[in-house]
């Protein structure tokens, strides 16, 4: 038996239950990492506390190495995983807006859920803002559809872009992450 255990076209209820279990696990990890606190998140932008970088990059590293080695040992069918499509300019603009929102609110969607679930009023208000934003985008999307679908690159991966074997890219990202962790620790030490 190999993953993914829930395939496309499988029962919706099993997908929803899996999403709930993963969401609870992710939320728990965020809360234990202290990322339900807007002050901690905003410390990132002042160079005081780079926990967000360290936690998120650690999660990325675990997922990347997990996918690679589970696939390598025949426990995961890597080709069955969905790769989100790249729309270069819309995603760059979206990323910029997301970053601006993160600085302004001190929380991102995941951490806003964690903050709200742990009883923080600011988390509730950020969630409300996110829901209003989603509604607004849904209502106005037709006006921006040309931009929304521009600079499409399909399911584009780093190994394809760089023309390098998948494993070499994995090793490169690991080195990059460890350098980022060391750099973050150095920045935090200087800020103290």
């Amino acid at each position: 038996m190999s993953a993914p255990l829930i395939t496309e076209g499988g029962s919706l209820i099993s997908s929803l239950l899996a999403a709930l279990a993963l969401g609870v696990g992710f939320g728990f990890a965020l809360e234990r990492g202290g990322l339900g606190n807007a002050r901690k998140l905003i410390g990132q932008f002042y160079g005081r506390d780079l926990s967000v970088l360290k936690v998120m990059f650690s999660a990325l590293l675990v997922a990347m190495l997990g996918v690679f080695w589970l696939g390598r040992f025949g426990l995961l069918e890597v080709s069955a995983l969905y790769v989100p499509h790249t729309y270069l300019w819309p995603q760059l603009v979206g990323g910029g807006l997301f970053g601006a929102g993160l600085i302004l609110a001190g929380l991102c969607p995941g951490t806003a859920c964690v903050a709200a679930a742990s009883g923080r009023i600011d988390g509730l208000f950020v969630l409300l803002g996110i829901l209003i934003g989603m509604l607004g985008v849904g209502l106005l999307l037709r006006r921006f559809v040309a931009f929304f679908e521009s600079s499409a690159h399909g399911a584009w991966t780093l190994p394809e872009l760089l023309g390098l074997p998948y494993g070499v890219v994995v090793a490169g990202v690991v080195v990059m992450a460890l350098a980022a962790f060391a750099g973050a620790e150095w920045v935090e030490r200087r800020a103290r």
Partner: protein
Amino acid sequence: MKINARILLALIGLTAGMLAAVAGAPQRPLGDDEISAIDLARAIRDRQPRLLVIDLRPVDAVETERLPTARALGELELQRLDSAAQLVVYADRDVDPDVIEAVRSQHGARSIRRLRGGVQAWKAEVLFPILRSDAVESQQGEFRKRAQLSRYFGGSPRVIEPGEALERSRSRRGC
């Protein structure tokens, strides 16, 4: 010497990353009793002596479509086959190794290999290979060879523009 937990985790991550670079691909390497769709296609094209491709699927599926030169298991009397025959068995996806053992034990020791990924892999890798038009030169060179092989079997290799949506049924749920 006391090892800090963070340093230990960093070392584990670094080791896993470096080993990934050595391993190269995230797919399990072919086992001794497996053959890739591309290798099987080359063997069929080159008319490899004593190659016998056997379709393990139900008869109605075999009648609808089968790999070139393949014969349904029911059409054969394995006991009467040349003991030097090179058998390749396949199904829709991977064939369970137990099936190989069952065939082997019933019909004597023969060279039996499983087609990795079955009919699905044959379609994806041999009949309908796809390459992005912005792929690097080495990938394009490899694709040209595959395209030749694909056309030999009546396939239709495609080079797609980066923005062209692939015809895939998968859709992303959630975010």
